[in-house]
């Protein structure tokens, strides 16, 4: 029955088998999840951030749980571009699912270095430009909160990205996310992903100190979902709809219903993040759930659902 439903989507020129990605930083570089899920069943896969040089990341504690969510301040800990190419790219090359490399850095040159080196790699479908990480002293979110900086970094990276899809990941910690979205789109972004985490804090009332060593962290999980749905809908209406540009919606997606909500709001696809920590492989369940929803609602093609908010 569910076979008769078409849940494939077009995403910035890519044909995706379904609209479900895993979000950056929640599934490593794919090999870590091998015992829990078949990555190739996903619509798309986004790697942990890659920076030009390896990064140790922040001191611990790096995470703390909150009601229906969690704060993280990992600090973009990653193996760096060279090790990524040597150790992870061969694994990624064997995948059939389109893979996006999440790219971060402290300077525009850092971002460019990663994108230029990877732009000719067949194994990669595109890049997700991380200009919204709240947990690093330099770079990260500072690139994603000023429209002029968004324009500068997006247009520079777009040139370096060549034929690859360039998706820009937006922070919700701005006055008007549509202004930032428009800056990215007009500078050459092929797709937008939103939202990254909210800057937040948890205080230890015994010690009067923040729980995280970094003091603040990014809030993710079910707690942020209604805000994420709203912001996706806002950007869809104000920026991407008229341009026919896809949004990857994320923020608290844990169930098929959550995914459907984002799609109704205007997302072409969704990414599962924090939920992977609780149930690695839940993305596959979400894909099945979306099919069942379509059957129940007699939706033959999921494209009918994108941005259908009444």
């Amino acid at each position: 029955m569910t076979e008769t439903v078409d849940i494939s989507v077009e995403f910035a020129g890519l044909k995706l088998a379904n609209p479900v990605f895993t979000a950056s930083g929640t599934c490593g570089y794919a090999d870590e999840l091998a015992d829990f899920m078949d990555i190739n069943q996903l619509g798309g896969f986004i790697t942990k951030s890659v920076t030009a040089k390896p990064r140790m990341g922040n001191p611990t504690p790096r995470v703390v749980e909150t009601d229906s969510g969690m704060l993280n301040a990992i600090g973009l800990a990653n193996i760096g571009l060279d090790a990524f190419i040597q150790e992870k790219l061969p694994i990624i090359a064997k995948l059939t699912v389109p893979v996006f490399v999440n790219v971060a850095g402290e300077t525009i040159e850092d971002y460019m270095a990663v994108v230029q080196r990877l732009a000719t790699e067949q194994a990669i479908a595109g890049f997700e430009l991380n200009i919204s990480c709240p947990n690093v002293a330099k770079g990260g979110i500072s690139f994603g909160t000023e429209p002029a900086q968004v324009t500068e970094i997006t247009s520079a990276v777009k040139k370096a990205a060549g034929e690859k899809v360039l998706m820009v990941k937006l922070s919700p910690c701005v006055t008007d996310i549509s202004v930032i979205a428009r800056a990215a789109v007009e500078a050459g972004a092929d797709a937008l992903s939103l939202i990254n985490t909210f800057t937040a804090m948890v205080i230890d009332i015994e010690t009067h100190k923040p729980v995280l060593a970094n003091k603040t962290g990014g809030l993710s999980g079910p707690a942020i979902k209604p805000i994420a749905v709203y912001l996706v809908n806002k950007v869809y209406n104000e920026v991407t709809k008229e341009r026919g540009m896809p949004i990857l919606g994320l923020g608290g997606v844990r169930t098929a219903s959550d995914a459907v909500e984002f799609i109704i709001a205007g997302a072409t696809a969704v990414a599962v993040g924090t939920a992977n920590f609780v149930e690695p492989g839940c993305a596959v369940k979400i894909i099945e759930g979306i099919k069942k929803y379509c059957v129940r609602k007699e939706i033959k093609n999921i494209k009918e659902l994108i941005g259908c908010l009444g």
Partner: protein
Amino acid sequence: MTNEVSKPNKGMFDAVVFANKQIRQRFYRLGLEFSGDGAAAFGKAKAGQFAELDLSSIALPPTEGIAEDLRDVAERKILLRRPFSFCDVSSRKEKTRVDILYCAVGPATLRMTTLSAGKSVSVIGPLGNGFQMPADKKMVLLVSGGMGAGPLIHLAKTLATDYPKVEVIAFAGAKTKTELPFERPLDEISQQLGFSLHEFARYGVESEVATDDGSAGYEGLITDCFSKWLGQRSLSAKDTIIYSCGPEKMLARMAKIAEDKGIDCQVSMERMMACGIGVCQSCAVKCRVEGSSETIYKLCCKDGPVFDSKEIVFKL
């Protein structure tokens, strides 16, 4: 021809609760039974490894059943899984039983106390690396602080089975008598067995107890108790190995004692974790790089939780 499919070494499995017993005050012992692939994976679980339990949908005990000082924290909703090491693993008739020693102190462990026999729990594991036993050791010293006793009880069993000729002695410490996570009342033990804890004695392992306030055994830190004991014995350092699990400050002291005596020492570390499988990068442990002044972060979940004590840059 048999159509044999290789069984995974780890995964996400549903386990069935077969026991959940309050052993004293806030200490409980949860028994989980695995079948099928879960039984195969957990049947190979090593002492020092751990599992991540999803306790988010388990009900809290009624308010009157929660100690007053925990009622506020109990109200917190939980999202992430919680990591637990094992105090026993046994396989029989294609089933594997895993015992977890835990202390009900927060929103997840308080929920855990309401798990009754027959209930199903989602478990990811077995995860991480357990204690490594070099073949040439003749004496093993197990040193625990508080809840750290759990994986060392499991290790005592493994050693009794796999290395019956090795002499094993356990040292268990806590702040006070009621915080020793052992089943039998210590007064009874002190009278009958001279502080030989049943949990270790059943594997032929003698034990020493210390409490900070002197309410049971040696008065003072377990590390001081251990040092004193060590000073009275003439051990061959190269034939001896220490395994330790407990608070980080205690592990740091153990590392120092071991280093001073030239004894190998493995410590089981603890960090806040989100995934437990090496993707979230939350549980970083600062480690020395051999032959260099550099430090790197390793992951408690994937590279540990058991580390060589010489590697760790402890947080003090």
